[in-house]
């Protein structure tokens, strides 16, 4: 039994931030969880799915975020407690529903976990989702540590239910993906039965509903005034106070301690960041002369506090505000202790440097003496490598300066050397085929470059279908290549509608990509990218045709395949390896560039790194010398 199921109230356990959120939901008696995977929020629904049988929770990986949110809302409308989790980009996908469900209201507690990824470590953008709370007039909670991640989630359900509004809980990568101590609470008895009653319609009375929404928000503000998630630490009459939320709380504490400013600088930590607990903040800023706002990404807290200070100018008098506007904190990238130390030191005129300026460079240099430098690349055996080589070959053979519009998935690194620099655009999910749609209609403006839109299988279901329908209806000249590796690989191989199993690993019906294409009326072919010369030939032929076409390159992700069966062991017969000479010039290790092939400096020949090779065998089909062979096979 894992910590999620542990029925020991008061016991302290180590938990990942996302697990703590899941445990909070469990302690709130969550009944329903629907989500679409996305870093850093993936582990919230994944954790709930893992214990769903144990706690009687319904858990699913939905086709996309808005569908997940709508499904979760349905559970709420039937009186259940529901959670939906997503990464920052998913909140954008939900926005349309978000801007109406706020007006129409909900019934059972409904919590939307927004996982933001500052510095875009695993994302296509950097985005601060907190503005959605202000935009949609919804209550926003920002956990600052692991305990709060659990406790706030539990409270978010109660608050949501009380206000009749969805509640947004914002986590960030550093909280979601690191681990800390969490004191467990009581596991509830679950008794809810689903029953739908009432009317939930946004639109007909939207203006009146909007007014009512503002009242609900005022009610939330009152709740927040006394919330234990807002508190002050530091000297009683500090003139300098750091106002902080989320991860900024722990960074600020460390920074103050590092600079020995405990006796002079106070920290006002806000957990309920929208609407602001105004009275609470004003009470703590009386007699304060300067404040530094320490928050992650946008100046969300900073701007709202500034408005509050302006409104309360008579009571508070002039207060100097330091933050991103003043240049003391970048309004982008991950927050850390150093950034707070730097800000404090510069404001206070202290000499202390957070870190020697050369530290990062020296650390990198040192690291490179242990670790060989490597560009971001596909795993050994990855089907995308073969697919992108086939695409590159077909486009080069075609010779009309064709290009690839990209999408969101592992294959996005195809924009770099891993994919031979083939992908020229990347935006949101479904953006690749959407763009290709438009390019495909530019022929009347003398546009004659062929366009290939690459799209992952999960992305296909998530966001590509409307654009494909559009291409069909408008006869747009676009070749869509679906890189079907059998699952949502980038986030940990969660199932999608084509996978044949559900969030709990049970067998499930499938919706085939090619059937969808045929239903739309688009010509579709399915090929194995590992049969590379046929793949090139067919792609080339398809490039010569007009109108919308779909090629599905189907080959399971090798990370999964390798686990399931024993793979062939390949080796390089160095007597046959052409190496540097004409006829090869290190094709496998230098150009095709799979990390499973290395250059044997001593022999000046290629060599298989048997530790990482997954035995896919594509290099053997491409080797001009026939030097890459299967161990134990007859020559």
């Amino acid at each position, binding site marked *: 039994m894992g910590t999620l199921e542990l029925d020991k109230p008061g016991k302290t356990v180590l938990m990942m931030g996302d697990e703590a959120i899941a445990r909070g939901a469990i302690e709130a008696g969550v009944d329903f969880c629907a989500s679409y995977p996305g870093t850093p929020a993936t582990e919230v629904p994944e954790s709930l799915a893992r214990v769903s049988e144990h706690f009687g929770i319904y858990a699913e990986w939905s086709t996309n975020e808005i569908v997940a949110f709508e499904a979760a809302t349905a559970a709420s409308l039937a009186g259940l407690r529901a959670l939906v989790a997503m990464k920052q980009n998913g909140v954008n996908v939900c926005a349309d529903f978000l801007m109406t469900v706020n007006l129409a209201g909900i019934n059972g507690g409904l919590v939307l976990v927004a996982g933001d990824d500052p510095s875009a470590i695993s994302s296509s953008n950097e985005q601060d989702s907190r503005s959605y709370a202000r935009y949609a007039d919804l209550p926003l909670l920002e956990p600052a540590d692991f305990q709060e991640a659990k406790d706030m989630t539990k409270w978010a359900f109660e608050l949501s239910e009380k206000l009749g509004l969805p509640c947004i809980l914002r986590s960030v990568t550093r909280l979601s993906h690191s681990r800390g101590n969490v004191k467990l609470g009581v596991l509830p008895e679950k008794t809810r039965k689903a029953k739908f009653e009432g009317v939930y319609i946004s639109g007909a009375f939207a203006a009146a509903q909007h007014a009512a929404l503002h009242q609900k928000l005022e009610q939330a503000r009152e709740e927040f005034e006394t919330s234990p998630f807002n508190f002050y630490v530091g000297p009683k009459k500090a003139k300098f106070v750091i106002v902080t939320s989320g991860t900024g709380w722990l960074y600020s504490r460390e920074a103050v301690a590092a600079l020995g400013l405990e006796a002079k600088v106070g920290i006002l930590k806000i957990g309920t960041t929208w609407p602001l607990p105004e009275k609470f903040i004003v009470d703590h800023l009386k007699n304060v002369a300067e404040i530094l706002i320490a928050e992650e990404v946008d100046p969300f807290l900073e701007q709202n506090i500034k408005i509050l200070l302006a409104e309360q100018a008579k009571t508070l008098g002039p207060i100097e505000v330091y933050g991103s506007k003043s240049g003391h904190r970048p309004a982008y990238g991950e927050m850390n202790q150093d950034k707070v130390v730097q800000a404090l030191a510069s404001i206070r005129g202290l000499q202390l440097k957070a870190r020697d300026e050369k530290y990062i460079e020296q650390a990198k240099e040192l690291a490179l003496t242990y670790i060989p430098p490597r560009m971001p690349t596909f795993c050994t055996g990855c089907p995308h490598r073969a697919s992108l080589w086939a695409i*590159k*070959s*077909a486009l*080069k*053979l*075609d*010779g009309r300066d064709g290009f690839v519009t990209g999408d969101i998935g592992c294959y996005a690194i195809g924009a770099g050397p891993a994919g*031979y620099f083939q992908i020229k655009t990347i935006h949101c999910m479904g953006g690749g085929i959407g763009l290709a749609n438009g390019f495909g209609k530019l022929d009347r403006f003398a546009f004659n470059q062929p366009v290939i839109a690459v799209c992952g299988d999960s992305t296909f279901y998530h966001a590509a279908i409307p654009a494909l329908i559009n291409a069909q209806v408008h006869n747009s000249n676009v070749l869509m290549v679906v890189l079907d590796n059998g699952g949502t690989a980038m986030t940990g191989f969660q199932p999608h509608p084509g996978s044949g199993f559900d969030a709990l690993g049970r067998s499930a019906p499938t919706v085939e990509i090619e059937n969808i294409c045929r239903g739309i009326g688009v010509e579709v072919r399915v090929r194995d990218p590992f049969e590379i*010369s046929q793949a*090139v*030939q067919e792609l*080339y*032929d398809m490039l*010569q045709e007009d109108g919308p076409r779909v090629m599905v390159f189907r080959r399971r992700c090798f990370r999964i395949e390798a686990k399931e069966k024993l793979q062939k062991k390949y080796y390089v017969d160095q007597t046959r390896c052409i190496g540097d000479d*004409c*006829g*090869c*010039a290190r*094709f496998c290790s230098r*150009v*095709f560039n799979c990390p499973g092939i290395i250059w044997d400096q001593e022999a000046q020949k290629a060599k298989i790194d048997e530790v990482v090779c997954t035995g896919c065998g594509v290099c053997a089909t*491409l*080797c*001009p010398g*026939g030097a890459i062979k299967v161990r134990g096979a007859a020559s």
Partner: protein
Amino acid sequence: MEAGKGSADLEQEVLGQSLCTSCGACVNICPYIKVVRDRVAVIEPCGLTEGKCYDFCPRTPTDIAALDKSVFGKTRSDFSLGPYISIEMAQAKDSEIRCRAQYGGVISALMKYALDAGEIKNAVLTRPFDGAMMPASVVVEESRQLEECAGSNYVSSATLARMNEATRQGKNSIGLVGIPCQVMALRKMQASRHDTGAKGVKLVIGLFCTWALSYKGFSEFLKKKVDLSQVRRIDIPPPPANVMVVETTAGDIRLSLDEVRKFIKPTCSVCYDMTSEFADVSVGMVEGVEDWNTFIVRTPAGENFIDKAKKAGVINTKPLEETRLEHLKQASSIKKKRAVDAIQKRTNDKKNLLYLRLSAQEKKKFL
């Protein structure tokens, strides 16, 4: 031969200038150059400054006299037809073969004999229809497989790419049927300082050729008139008809040759060789004679082989009348003259003949 150039130069000087004949000599000797249909491309520059690809190409500098020496052991005295031992008319004795073939069926008969008699073990040649109008180069080990290779092609396939693949698999004792650019490239491969499987080609039968069509342009044009899968045979009847006849399952379509000529590969305009001058034996049509081929024996190896074939009763021969021979020489000379003119027009320089390296005598004749 001018060495010292590689795939980047090939891409710039040949592919980039629409001079590629898609003979396939540069394909399947490394992983960087690929062919699909009749399109050849350097997928990624290999980074080497010298390469076989550049050396083998029929459109990179080619010294005609030096190639003569390497193939025939001497330079040519006939500047319109190249070196030869004899010129006759010939036809296959087997009327069945003649029936299937476009003209006299000599090539089918000779290849059948070569395989059956063990003169060669593998025949590399072209099957005219591999779906959608594109011919396919094939390796044949048994003579009965030759049947589907009969007939003329108006789109060229990368025969040497198929040959390179075969030699890489260790195949030797090869007989090859090719058009002039393919034969020229093959001889460059055989003469090369590089070790290549091309040395395993024992018999080269060259076809007469005036031009080839670009697959993309021609198939798109034809697609508008007929379902390509219905095409059975394509023929250009002798002048003055000036038509191309496309036989389909739904009946014949007659295309004006003037229209078809628009799709001739640009590289054909700079071609200096109509009669496959570097082959062991060259075979073509005889204008105005339907059942017979023009038949040029060029090398001692070719002569030796033909003697055996004649003794085995595979082909009938008869003399080519003097007027026909003159006519052939004239046609070949016109092609050479046109090529030189086209090249000079391209380079805008009387002395820059692109790939052609001609002897002083030859220059005198055609410049």
